[in-house]
């Protein structure tokens, strides 16, 4: 599967996770291909942030709301829960502090969509086991000394982090290196072997609001009347 097809497939899946008319922030939006697609197909209200100035300007020149900025420094400018979805596609492994970034996604957005290359894929495991060298594959084509990907992790690692951090995995889909897609189940170990790229829909544990039983029907309503 070539790179462009894989990106398109990734975008299609991401789109399928998102309700129409949602507010969406795409972190590392490039020249805005995904948010452009989301605006057209599902009438999303989108924003983007992109580190590369040339790509950011290409997006701006298409009339997209994109700011040039750094995902690890500039996310603090967005207020809590100001988006329905925050997308981080194929970049978590390139972050200096992936955990902090992941938490930021769920602070800004009600839901987060994260996609990443799975380091637990059998080809990668086999290369390391047989050759004893850092794996270089079609999907991860960089030598260790020049890769932008500084934090490798597997599906299992990611699931563990989510569990530890009270993050709910609402949906997770794997793409095999041939482009076949399947749902990833927590206990389904084979997924970690065959998924070359994983896409997760995440949210925080939803707590039901505490209901106070009282003879008065509603505190808020009464206090509003009194004033």
């Amino acid at each position, binding site marked *: 599967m070539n790179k462009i097809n894989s990106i398109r497939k990734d975008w299609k899946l991401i789109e399928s996770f998102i309700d129409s008319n949602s507010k969406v922030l795409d972190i590392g939006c490039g020249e805005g291909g995904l948010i452009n697609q989301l605006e057209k197909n599902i009438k999303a209200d989108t924003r983007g942030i992109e580190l590369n100035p040339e790509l950011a300007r290409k997006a701006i020149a298409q009339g997209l709301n994109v700011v040039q*900025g750094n995902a690890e420094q500039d996310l603090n400018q967005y207020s809590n829960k100001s988006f329905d979805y925050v997308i981080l596609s194929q970049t978590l492994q390139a972050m200096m502090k992936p955990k902090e970034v992941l938490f930021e996604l769920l602070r800004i957005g009600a839901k987060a969509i994260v996609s990443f290359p799975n380091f637990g894929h059998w080809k990668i495991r086999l290369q390391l086991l047989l050759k004893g060298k850092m794996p270089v594959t079609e999907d991860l084509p960089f030598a260790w000394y020049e890769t932008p990907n500084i934090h490798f992790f597997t599906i299992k690692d990611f699931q563990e982090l989510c569990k530890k951090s009270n993050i709910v995995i609402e949906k997770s889909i794997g793409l095999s290196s041939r482009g076949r897609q399947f749902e990833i189940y927590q206990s389904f170990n084979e997924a970690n072997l065959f998924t070359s790229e994983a896409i997760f829909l995440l949210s925080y544990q939803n707590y039901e609001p505490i209901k106070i039983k009282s003879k008065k029907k509603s505190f808020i309503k009464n206090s509003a009347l009194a004033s």
Partner: protein
Amino acid sequence: MSQTLEIIVNQKLECNVALFSNVICKLDSDIELNNFQIAYKTFGKLNKNKNNAILVCHALTGDQFVSGKNPITKKDGWWSRMVGPNKPIDTNRYFVICSNVLGGCCGTTGPKEIDHKTNSIYGGTFPSITIRDIVKVQKFLIDALEIEKIFAVIGGSMGAMQVLQWSIDYPDKLINAIHIAGALKHSTQNIAFHEVGRQAIMNDTAWNKGNYSEKNNIPERGLSVARMIAHITYLSEDAMHRKFGRRLQSRDIISFGFDADFQIESYLRHQGRSFVERFDANSYLYLTRAMDYFDLTDNFSKSIEFSPIPNQHINYLIISFTSDWLFPTNENKQIVKTLNYFTRNVSFTEIETDKGHDSFLLDEPELDLTIAGFLNSNYNKLTSDE
């Protein structure tokens, strides 16, 4: 007396002048202007739907001659590389308006013009003005031209201040706001530089508390020194070094005196001299003061959040330059951060260049592409919705 509006053509300045008589315009200082005039130029045609108007706000020493020939200097307009037929701001498509600011010296009411109350030149009696006042007066012009909604307000430096002011004072009047190399406030360092420039003018004996026209005398030396200082702040160390280095001017050896030995000296002296020919010293004082007073650090976020007039539709584009130390990127980014905090429509890019603050006036292909793309795609969206 009844209010009147008359639009005349000023032959000498080759532009239009809107004359407002018995119209009250209350300034921030509480002083009222009753009779005032705005000199402006337009380029291109206003279309039937009146949705293609672009207002260009000029910087401190700019004027209404944004494109075409400037009749005073006989040179190309100050942004003629950006505005014109088939230029990034394409006058085949857009109706571009550029007016001389209040307090300026190219035909709009300012210290050089006649005070109708006294029938003599304002000079030092001209009231103190703010960026808000400048925008307020521009609004009279836009209303006079019967434009309901301006498609885009664009400006760099002091023009960028006007863009922000437009977006909070009359948010329903504009759709897009392009803010280049500006800030939420004029910084301490910038006020300091302005003060040095003003002191140079006011210490020139010819200044005479601003009433120099009576004596037919111009504080030339003061004004040219002010311009020389300011000009340094518009460049960057790298650009100056690249352009002039330590090269000598028309000589092989140093003079052991205070002639303009170095090219940079000669260049600055030339800048100072030619500025005096086209700019008024009092205008320089009043407009630098207006910039100093500009501070939206509190007001901008409050207005974005609580504006009684809807403002959520405005698309902001903020642009900064890496080597701009007068309005640096971090100051521009404050605006972006505020807008992002309230999830407003904002785009931002920092353009890499060594040309300093003046970059917005110079050949920067990335700037052209961004502005043209932003305008055209937003215009296409607007017209496809209609």
